[in-house]
């Protein structure tokens, strides 16, 4: 393979993995607090359409991101009120949110379907982007790609080094104990859900404003579900979420390249399309199969409602 081709595949892999990382890290924080929000697909759709609309009207991608984030938080709030305040079933509320978000975004997005945005310029890391092979692949990206790396580092630090992160994990592990040690479980879970919503919104904004700067109904195309699966198969660990996201992105790009290149392979195209999903799950299951680490990292109260008055 020529160096330029490899570099192009790496570049595309990172771009494809970025929305997954952002959404999955948000969901990871939510789930670490013990809340299972299955609404990611819907939240990403709403984030995407809100970001696109605002960018169309203002011309500012930054305002677009903020709009996506706000829309995501609003969706998160709806979920939180249902699941945390009224203690509705989390699985059902999340699924409803997904269906609702996908549908509503299609409705809101109708007037924007034929419009396109200019693509957002990349920001090249001075010096580094000139490196052979990796320079283009890693250091000539749009801002949100760097943001996803910072987000990963920040969340890993937050969870394992900061006091609030410890509290968050404690709440997800044993809400009753956390309550009796004096923490406001419901408030902490609200914050975690809002953060997860905000990140899913940003991930949506990345898709519609940065990745492919246009709005098409259903453009999130299952990435919300992939993000959810990544969190579980990565056993709630940020670094593994990243591995999974890039692995998925890489397989996706490679199989698209293979299919598009007109190479004559005796493999059905359906099999190639399914490959990224299968490969990601298999690899993550293999690296995370240790029972003890699963027990240590999975939030024990996931999906269970909590009420302070026991």
């Amino acid at each position, binding site marked *: 393979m020529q160096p330029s081709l490899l570099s192009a595949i790496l570049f595309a892999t990172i771009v494809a993995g970025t929305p997954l990382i952002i959404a999955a890290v948000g969901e990871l924080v939510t789930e670490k607090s013990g809340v299972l929000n299955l609404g990611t697909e819907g939240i990403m759709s709403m984030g995407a359409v809100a970001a696109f609309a605002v960018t169309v009207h203002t011309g500012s991608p930054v305002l677009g991101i903020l709009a996506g984030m706000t829309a995501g938080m609003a969706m998160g709030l709806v979920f939180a009120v249902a699941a945390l305040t009224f203690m509705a079933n989390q699985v059902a509320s999340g699924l409803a949110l997904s269906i609702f978000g996908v549908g509503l975004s299609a409705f809101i997005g109708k007037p924007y379907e034929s419009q396109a945005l200019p693509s957002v310029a990349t920001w090249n890391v001075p010096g580094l982007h000139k490196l052979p092979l990796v320079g283009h692949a890693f250091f000539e990206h749009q801002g949100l790609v760097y943001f996803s790396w910072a987000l990963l580092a920040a969340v890993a630090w937050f969870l394992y*080094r*900061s*006091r609030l992160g*410890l*509290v968050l*994990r*404690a709440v997800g*592990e*044993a809400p*009753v*104990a*956390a*309550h*009796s*040690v*004096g*923490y*406001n479980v419901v408030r902490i879970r609200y914050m975690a859900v809002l953060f997860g919503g905000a990140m899913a919104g940003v991930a949506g904004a990345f898709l519609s404003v940065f990745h492919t700067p246009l709005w098409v109904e259903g453009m999130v195309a299952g990435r919300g579900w992939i993000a959810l699966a990544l969190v579980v198969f990565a056993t709630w660990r940020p670094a593994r979420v990243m591995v999974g996201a890039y692995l998925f992105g890489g397989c996706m790009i490679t199989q698209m390249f293979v299919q598009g290149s007109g190479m004559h392979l005796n493999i059905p195209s359906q099999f190639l399309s399914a490959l990224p999903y299968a490969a990601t799950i298999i690899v993550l299951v293999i690296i995370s199969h240790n029972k*003890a680490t699963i*027990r*240590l*990292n999975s939030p*024990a109260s996931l999906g269970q409602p909590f009420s*302070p*008055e*026991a």
Partner: protein
Amino acid sequence: MPNAPSETPRLVIKGVSKIYPSVIANDNVDLTIMPGEIRAVLGENGAGKSTLMKIIYGVTHPDKGEILWEGSPVTVQNPAHARELGIGMVFQHFSLFETLTVAQNVALAVPGRLDLAGLSRRIEEISGKYGLPVDPRRLVHALSVGERQRVEIIRCLLQNPRLLILDEPTSVLTPQAVRKLFETLRQLASEGVSILYISHKLDEIQELCHTATVLRNGRVTGHCTPSQETPKTMARLMIGEDLPTFHHGEPEEGREVRLRIDGLSVKSEDPFGVDLEDVSLEVRSGEIVGIAGVSGNGQQELLRAISGEEPVPDKRWIHVCGVPAGRMNASRRRALGMCFVPEERLGRGAVPRLSLTDNVLLTAFRRKMVRFGMIRRKAAKTFADDCIRLFDVKCGGAASEAKSLSGGNLQKFIVGREILQEPKVLVLAQPTWGVDVGAASFIRQQLLCLREKGTAVLVISEELDELFEICDRLVVIAKGRLSPSKATSETGVEEVGVWMSGMWPGAEPAKDEAPHVA
């Protein structure tokens, strides 16, 4: 000592009531505690002691009544509020986070910047000073209940509370640790800390507490000064009658080996756990064998290996009723006629959110409760009802959730469930944990009856008194090794105490059993 009456009481409770759908847990309770006072709250299982403490700590809210904190009326909103006021509590059912380390668990309860290294040092310092050894780096889920109890106490002491609530803090502590804890508590009281102390161990109450309030069926039925009472008179105050006495019957003939452990060696998965080394033990039909030892010396690992929760690699290491069972899981061992009572009652012994009937089904379904793969609810309910009646479990009936039971009542239920299955082999850990004196002697009597009927009983306990009361033979576990066994009648508390530090004669090459001060 209780201070002059002119002083403002630290806490006054007036007419507090708490009504649950099935039971009145607290009925018009009054209680006053002065600065520097150590007050015992006494009562049978289900008398409402824990409920009252949870009300003071803001975990539950009273339906009626008033609370005065240092003279001014307060409504304790939640535990956070209670802690702001200066109230600390050690819960009967621990409130620890299993996947976090000891240091992290403590950090969650002390305000300020997160400095785990510094905190670990403080924990080590305090645990040394108070005689409550714990390793701050260990994960809580790998700790025994005795160690967990130490963590709870240390965490609470580090908060410097002005009112300290201890709900059965010593139920699984060793006598030495209890002595140290009492020194600490007396020291705290002399500095003006008020202490509310709940325990079923009446000799402890007599030794430690200045005053006592007795609860029965949710009502205050009396007060006393423990130093002027004997454990016997206090027991009478509590249960309203005298304690039953024991009856040791003789077992039937035909004493075959029912449980044989032969050269069992297990490496603990937990890096801080204890490895079992060459453990051998036989329990015959019609005898009760006790395993004494300080918690955290391999009891947990041994129990897991015996029960089948953690099958061992060689099937010949464990024989149940003559069948090599080392590699069988818990369910297959139960099918051979073995029953267990694990030490953690919520989570291992019972599923908190399931009803008592469902909890019966989990272990006793072989007693004709399942036919053609279908559950016969009636059989299960009858079994649960029998257990509730025979073991005098106070609850709202067989349909109540396991977690709604008071600690001692749940323990009675779990022990009863296993005993009523008339097992061939019964293995129990801390069988009378948190059970009141009346019920504890009832459970012991039931174990003696089982022995008479020919069951092989193995009891793992930290309570030497209990072991000496019911066991035929004793062995001691220390650092994952088992001492030779001794007939209970031929040994004494001192000798077993020495053995508990791992110094038994067999540990040396010497063949003869040296006298105990060797």
